[in-house]
């Protein structure tokens, strides 16, 4: 191949029609911008985690446990030395006497100099060191506002009063969305015992933080002690572990968003393929002539390939620049989900990789239409009626198809960082595109059949969808995919939130829960509820226990088998209950519910997933360690539990008459419709029974809804790039067929069509395109969300009629406006000018 010729021709050919070709370049711009933004952000994120990791833990290492640290752990800590501090975390009702208000608060009792690294910022400043100077607390500002008090006031935590000396401005490692899950308070740990809240049934997390002496190796210490303390259920964290874990979790989130961004790039590839196809079609005579004067087919493919590559490079570079700008906006969008302050710096690596990906995708997608150039017979320069030759199996074409498939697969795997995820993603993308392609084919097939009875403008507009060289399929693929992503996010969010809906007046679900009620307090709590005229559900007993043996094998033996799945099921503490009936959130799958007299071995019902984790079925024996007492049980049934319901659900339910004498607490649920009544009830119970925790489930619902809102906002933002690409493809499709449209318009005007009629025809065409794209997207989005609801979230699928209609209408409207804006110049041309131009051309 004569390279100088190919390069020169490519450059000269691109000179003319630059605006049209610029759209080819713009096809990949949005996709590259999205990828560069998210990948650059991920790099910033990793750097920031590395820089701030030590402050996240606030120490070199920590020992954490759900129960008071056993002697073995204490001995380990003594031998490690260094400087140590403790933080004991538990939930409690805080009660403000001045406003007579109570609020569930996450308490953190601190002793020693934690945090050793990083600073806890307070308002007023520098109050942290004085926390341990008396009965002091430093609280989230939201606690002050919800209790209606100010700095200087006191709050009761259990049996002790503390003075609020400051509010928290920033804690290293805090996630913005955290505040949605209830306020937090740091108290002087010296007065922890005096609160009287760490009694039976309390959920407490004990942590000891260690600052090692110079030269201490946290990782080595952790590795040394982990195996010895595992059995005692003590977890050891180091800065490096935390960093790796956080890095992993956040990279997964970023990779997922990156995949959404990749969709935009792949759609851009489709746009490039379509634009190249039309571009080539206009060049057939030139190609034939050049073949006549000696150009080889490889040279001709080379000319247009170089042209496409150069344009894609320009488009990708522009995308990379835009991506760096967008990257600066991402911390604001994702900041609330991330525990570090992400420091922005442009990532040249992400920009380079994004540009190369854009180039790669554009070239891969351009190749397929470019191969047609090889088939242009030189004879076409002499005779117009000569068509492309088609002989035998075209290995180049097959290879190009394979390369295209491989491109989608490799990019998906690379962007997801995981082979299987990438493969599933690539498969899904291809499947959705195939379905959209079917929708487009169906529409074009229907166009001729349904248009007959329509008014003129609609008939002409719908028929335009199948005009020669139409790009209906490409446009439906590109816009439809973007709308599909948005529809799926919207529907999934709606389905999840509707399942959790307890705040709407129509909901009959309980919205307040009181837990940690001691048996002696049950009657008292019940009478408070009764006095308030509140209908409470029957109280439910909670008995903490652990697995001692499964089918005769001790749990320690089972745990030693590291190859075994589901070791969490052996480790965890179970909170079980007893009942004589199934509840509405449960369904019996196997075995029988208990009837008749109690056999020698007590009967239990086990939740399905747990039975799979433990590898047990009906008839198997499990021995439970209930605070030191071994209780043998036999599995009588397996249940399915709808965990999404705000109800007390259990992995294990005992038959009555077994656990009644074991130490237990009670939980009561109630429906209290009015928010002020909920506040009053919480206050009354907190005043009388400080250890009883009242939880307003509407706060939880609100928190989940805010969290989902943050996550879906980020996904939607990325999905918007796909829709943007769809619009660029639409503009490109309209621009490439501009000549044809202008000629049609001139013809219609010559025949007497008014400008208004021409606009009506264009509107009808783009409305039809947008409607088909939007409807297909909605149907596919429903299918995807239904699958997610069924297999991932395990909740019933719900279709929000209003939002769905709005989505389809918006897609149609945006398509219509973009189409109209691009096509408007068609109606501005004078018929004579156009027809003369046609005659001359």
């Amino acid at each position, binding site marked *: 191949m004569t390279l100088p010729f190919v390069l020169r021709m490519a450059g*000269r050919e691109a000179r003319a*029609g630059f605006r049209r070709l610029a759209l080819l370049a713009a096809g990949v711009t949005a996709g590259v911008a999205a990828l560069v933004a998210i990948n650059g952000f991920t790099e910033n994120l990793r750097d920031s985690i590395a820089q701030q990791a030590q402050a996240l833990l606030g120490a070199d290492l920590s020992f954490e446990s759900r129960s008071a640290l056993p002697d073995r752990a204490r001995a380990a800590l003594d031998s490690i030395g260094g400087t140590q501090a403790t933080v004991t975390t538990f939930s409690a009702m805080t009660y403000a006497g001045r406003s007579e208000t109570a609020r569930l608060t996450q308490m953190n009792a601190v002793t020693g100099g934690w945090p050793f690294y990083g600073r806890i910022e307070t308002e007023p400043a520098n109050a942290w060191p004085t926390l341990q100077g008396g009965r002091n607390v430093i609280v989230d500002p939201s606690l002050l506002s919800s209790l209606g008090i100010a700095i200087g006031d006191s709050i009761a935590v259990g049996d002790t009063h503390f003075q609020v000396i400051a509010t928290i401005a920033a804690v290293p490692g805090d996630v913005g969305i955290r505040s949605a899950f209830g306020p937090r308070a740091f108290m002087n740990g010296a007065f922890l015992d005096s609160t009287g809240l760490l009694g039976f049934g309390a959920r407490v997390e004990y942590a000891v933080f260690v600052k090692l002496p110079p030269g201490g190796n946290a990782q080595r210490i952790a590795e040394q002690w982990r195996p010895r303390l595992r059995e005692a259920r003590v977890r050891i964290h180091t800065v490096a572990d935390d960093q790796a874990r956080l890095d992993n979790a956040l990279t997964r989130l970023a990779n997922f968003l990156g995949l959404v961004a990749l969709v935009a790039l792949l759609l851009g590839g489709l746009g490039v393929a379509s634009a190249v196809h039309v571009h080539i079609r206009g060049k057939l005579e*030139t190609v034939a002539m050049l073949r006549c004067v000696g150009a*080889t087919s490889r040279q001709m493919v080379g000319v247009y390939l170089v042209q496409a590559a150069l344009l894609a490079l320009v488009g990708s570079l522009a995308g990379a620049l835009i991506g760096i700008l967008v990257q600066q906006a991402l911390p604001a969008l994702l900041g609330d989900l991330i525990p570090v302050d992400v420091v922005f710096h442009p990532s040249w690596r992400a920009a380079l990789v994004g540009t190369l990906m854009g180039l790669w995708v554009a070239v891969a997608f351009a190749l397929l239409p470019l191969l047609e150039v090889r088939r242009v017979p030189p004879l076409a320069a*002499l005779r117009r009626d000569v068509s492309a030759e088609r002989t035998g199996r075209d290995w180049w074409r097959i290879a190009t198809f394979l390369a295209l498939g491989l491109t989608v697969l490799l990019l998906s795997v690379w962007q997801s960082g995981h082979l299987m995820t990438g493969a599933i993603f690539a498969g899904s993308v291809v499947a959705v595109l195939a379905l959209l392609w079917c929708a487009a084919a169906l529409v074009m097939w229907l166009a001729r059949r349904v248009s007959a009875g329509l008014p003129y403008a609609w008939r002409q507009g719908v028929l335009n969808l199948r005009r020669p060289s139409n790009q209906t399929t490409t446009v439906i693929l590109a816009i439809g995919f973007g709308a599909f992503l948005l529809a799926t996010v919207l529907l999934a969010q709606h389905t999840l939130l509707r399942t959790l809906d307890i705040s709407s007046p129509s909901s009959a679900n309980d919205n307040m829960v009181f837990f940690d009620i001691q048996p002696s307090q049950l009657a008292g709590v019940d009478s408070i509820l009764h006095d308030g005229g509140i209908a409470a559900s029957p109280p439910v007993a909670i008995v903490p226990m652990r697995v001692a043996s499964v089918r005769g094998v001790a749990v320690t033996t089972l745990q030693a088998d590291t190859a075994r799945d589901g070791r969490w099921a052996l480790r965890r503490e179970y909170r079980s209950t007893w009942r004589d009936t199934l509840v509405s959130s449960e369904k019996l799958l196997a075995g029988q519910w208990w009837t008749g007299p109690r056999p020698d071995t007590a009967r239990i019902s086990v939740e399905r997933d747990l039975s799979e984790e433990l590898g047990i079925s009906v008839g198997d024996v499990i021995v439970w360690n209930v605070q030191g007492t071994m209780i043998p049980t036999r599995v009588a049934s397996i249940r399915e539990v709808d965990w999404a319901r705000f109800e007390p659900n259990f992995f294990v339910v005992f038959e009555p008459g077994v656990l009644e004498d074991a130490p237990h607490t009670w939980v009561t649920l109630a429906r209290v419709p009015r928010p002020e009544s909920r506040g009053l009830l919480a206050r009354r119970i907190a005043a009388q029974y400080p250890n009883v925790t009242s939880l307003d489930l509407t706060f939880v619902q609100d928190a989940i809804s805010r969290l989902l809102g943050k996550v879906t906002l980020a996904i939607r933002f990325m999905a918007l790039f796909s829709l943007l690409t769809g619009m660029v493809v639409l503009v490109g499709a309209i621009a490439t067929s501009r000549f044809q449209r202008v000629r049609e318009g001139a013809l219609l005007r010559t025949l007497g069509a008014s400008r208004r009629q021409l606009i009506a025809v264009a509107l009808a065409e783009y409305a039809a395109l947008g409607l088909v794209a939007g409807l297909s997207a909605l149907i596919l989005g429903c299918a995807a969300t239904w699958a997610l609801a069924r297999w991932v979230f395990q909740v019933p699928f719900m279709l929000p009629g209003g939002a769905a209609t709005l989505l389809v209408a918006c897609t149609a409207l945006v398509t219509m406006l973009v189409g109209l804006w691009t096509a408007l110049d068609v109606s501005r041309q004078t018929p004579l000018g156009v027809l003369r131009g046609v005659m001359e051309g």
Partner: protein
Amino acid sequence: MIRCEGLTRSYPSGGGTLTVLKNITLSVEPGGFLAIVGPSGSGKTTLLGLLAGLDHPSSGTVTLDGVRLDTLTEDGRARLRGERVGFVFQSFQLVPTLTALENVLVPLELLGRPDMARAHQLLADVGLAGREHHYPAQLSGGEQQRVALARAFVNTPRILFADEPTGNLDAATGATIIALMHQLNQANGTTLVLVTHDQLLADRARRTVRLADGEIVSDSAA
């Protein structure tokens, strides 16, 4: 210089076969000037396309400047054309995105030896000095065909094929083009094969082959 034997070209047509060229045998000596004439649909352009290697015959062989075309690949034939053949088309076939000068340069660039001076010289020879940087759309039909002539001669072809070179031009402009083509042919000693309806042009050829229904009905020397 050109020899074809038993040249036949058929196309599948509506379930049957349409034979547009039947068993043509002819040869053209070096430096010769052959005009192929005949009514529309007689197979003139098909014959020209086959002689130039732009199409494959259904049967028969073509030898161009000593090379059997059926022994070459498609790209091999393209290279042969690039080195030894020039073309003039009825519809000029200039690349609309290239200037006059760039259009003339194309064959030389394909050979990897662009020669700006020669392109300038040829444009001057066809009377377009000073119009080198004009695009085809900025030139009249006659001027466009002159650019095409300059392009056809730029690689000093041993054979020039012309398909109705005056077909899209008025009589006066057509005459100028014929004179130019003749002049360039004389100056370069090129073998000339042209398809034409134009009797004036055919009269200037040293030999005229007349086709009807795909067969040679007369072959006369001037």
